């Protein structure tokens, strides 16, 4: 059995009396030690999936309306708040996009790391401190024994993100959810963080869910990817075959619309492929049709009349498009 199995998950947001399914019938699974990437534009439900797994949906506004999130055999969708608090930061932890604001400015980083260890692992103050130094060393902060007494403002953005990773990994979680962990960082720092995540995964066997909009990052980091569009799964499968031959026009567009660096650059520069228009508003979520149709060149009447069913290809590759064969 997979480490995490999400089945037919439906998350609804209630805004001004309107209910919108921001995650609409999404299923996927995550094996231990695997890296799975969620890709898509903002507003497509990538982060919402992560929040649903963490039990951190916005209070009163968001709720899991249907489906299950099985983690190690336990359904998190039905777990109590108390149980979720035990799991969060311990068995499943998360790092966020903004390393500048996700650390508490009035505590030293040592205190913030120790605090997690003491809460979840009942370590004493001394043991927690020692472990914190070890963790800082593991995330490659130079001179960890001294830096542990630093406050967040004394560190650079990249170092803060390392501290966030140290906190997330403190209790050796089974799953680490990284929500755009490098978007706010420079590329050279991003490369360092990616390296670090890869090494840590090798050492600890932690499964990683990487949420990103950068296909390059997916290609470098993940084995499998899920492309989300308007709360639904557009495409799902192993990374290499999808990048080589995407079976959903949205995925294809996402790959082609970004100017990439190639092995050998040539004089010619092709016009970038555009995906016209923007992600539909929440009001359109949940409609029984293809939500990408309005931006799609392959649109047919069927796309406007009926929500596409998943078409299967080899090696677990699947695409929710009526014209998947033609893409």
């Amino acid at each position, binding site marked *: 059995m997979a480490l995490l199995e999400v089945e037919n998950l439906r998350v609804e947001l209630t805004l001004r009396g309107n209910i919108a399914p921001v995650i609409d019938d999404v299923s996927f699974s995550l094996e231990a030690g695997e890296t799975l990437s969620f890709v898509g534009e903002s507003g497509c439900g990538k982060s919402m999936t992560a929040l649903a797994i963490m039990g951190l949906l916005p209070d009163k506004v968001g709720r899991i309306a249907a489906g299950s999130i099985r983690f190690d055999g336990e359904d998190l969708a039905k777990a109590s708040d108390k149980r979720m608090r035990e799991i969060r930061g311990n068995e499943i932890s998360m790092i966020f996009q903004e390393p500048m604001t996700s650390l508490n400015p009035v505590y030293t980083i040592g205190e913030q790391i120790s605090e997690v260890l003491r809460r979840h692992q009942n370590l004493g103050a001394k043991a927690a401190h020692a472990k914190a130094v070890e963790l800082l060393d593991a995330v490659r902060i130079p001179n960890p024994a001294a830096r542990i007494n630093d406050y967040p403002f004394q560190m650079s953005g990249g170092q803060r993100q390392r501290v966030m990773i140290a906190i997330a990994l403190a209790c050796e979680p089974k799953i680490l959810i990284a929500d755009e962990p490098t978007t706010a960082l420079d590329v050279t720092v991003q490369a360092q963080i990616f390296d670090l995540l890869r090494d840590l995964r090798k050492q600890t066997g932690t499964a990683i869910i990487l949420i990103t909009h950068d296909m390059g990052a997916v290609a470098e980091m993940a084995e499998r990817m899920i492309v989300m569009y308007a709360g639904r799964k557009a495409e799902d499968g192993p990374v290499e075959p999808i990048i080589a031959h995407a079976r959903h026009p949205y995925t294809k567009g996402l790959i082609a619309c970004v100017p990439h660096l190639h092995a050998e650059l040539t004089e010619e520069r092709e016009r970038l*492929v*555009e*995906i016209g228009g923007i992600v539909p508003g929440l009001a359109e979520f949940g409609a029984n049709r293809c939500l990408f149709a*309005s931006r*799609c*060149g392959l*649109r047919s009447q069927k796309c*406007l009349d009926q929500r596409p069913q998943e078409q299967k290809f080899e090696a677990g590759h699947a695409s929710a498009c009526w014209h998947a064969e033609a893409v």
Partner: protein
Amino acid sequence: MSDQTAQSEVALPEEPVVKARHPLAEAAEMFARNKAAVAGLIVLLIIIIAAIVGPFLYPTDPFAMVWAPFTPPAQEGYLLGTDYLGRDLVAMLIHGARVSIVIGLSAALITVFIGVTIGALAGFFRGWVEEVLMRFTEFFQVLPTLLFSMVIVALFGASLPMITLAIGLVSWPAVARITRSEFLRIRELEYVTASRASGTSNMKLIFGVILPNAAPPIIVQAALMVGTAILFEAGLSFLGLTDPNVVSWGQIIGSNRQYILDAAYTVTIPGVAIFVSVLAISLVGDGLNDALNPKLRQR
């Protein structure tokens, strides 16, 4: 030239035409959704209308002795009774409302005028201009406000304009500080840089570009200032430091205070009037704050 991919033969339904919505129209809608604020606004409007047309509909002279002193409310045809000199409390309340409203509004205007000018210049020009202006502001801020206004009134006489000026002079620093901090924030935004890149003059930048965007918290502060000014005036007149020839709510309380045990209503009624009007203003201010705050407006 934009839709390269959308070449499908299947047409989409026409996009609906979006109507232009002024940011203020959206703010008004937001305000209307806040029931407490709307209630406050209604109360406030009633008080203002009463102050304006009241004296014509109810022409009793507030200084005339109309009946026996200490007639309790709703007796002998006097809705709110009479005070220790036998003056009609309804007439006094209506005339007092005029004074309160006039002082409240004009003190707030003075406050905004001085505060915005100083805050805007300090926040826009930075450097030594800011240093000088903010030291000046701090000087006014540390003055004991009640004492300072008592001195002004004692020196220059207890006329209405002087009282208004005194209140204005002691309360502008708050507005100056808010204006300055808003200017400091907004002057760094890219649309201000964009205006500079297209050669806009400094005066236009200050008053045409930054000030309209800095207005919301200033408006809220000004609205609350009206309430503060009314309370302030009440305080001064309670101490007998205002023009005795003008009726105001604070003065009614002040002049009847000796009889508070025998005829509590003479003090309670104007007290309630002050309380209700200041509360109404606070609610409106709160509503404005919510309506004009773009963070709350997002979805």
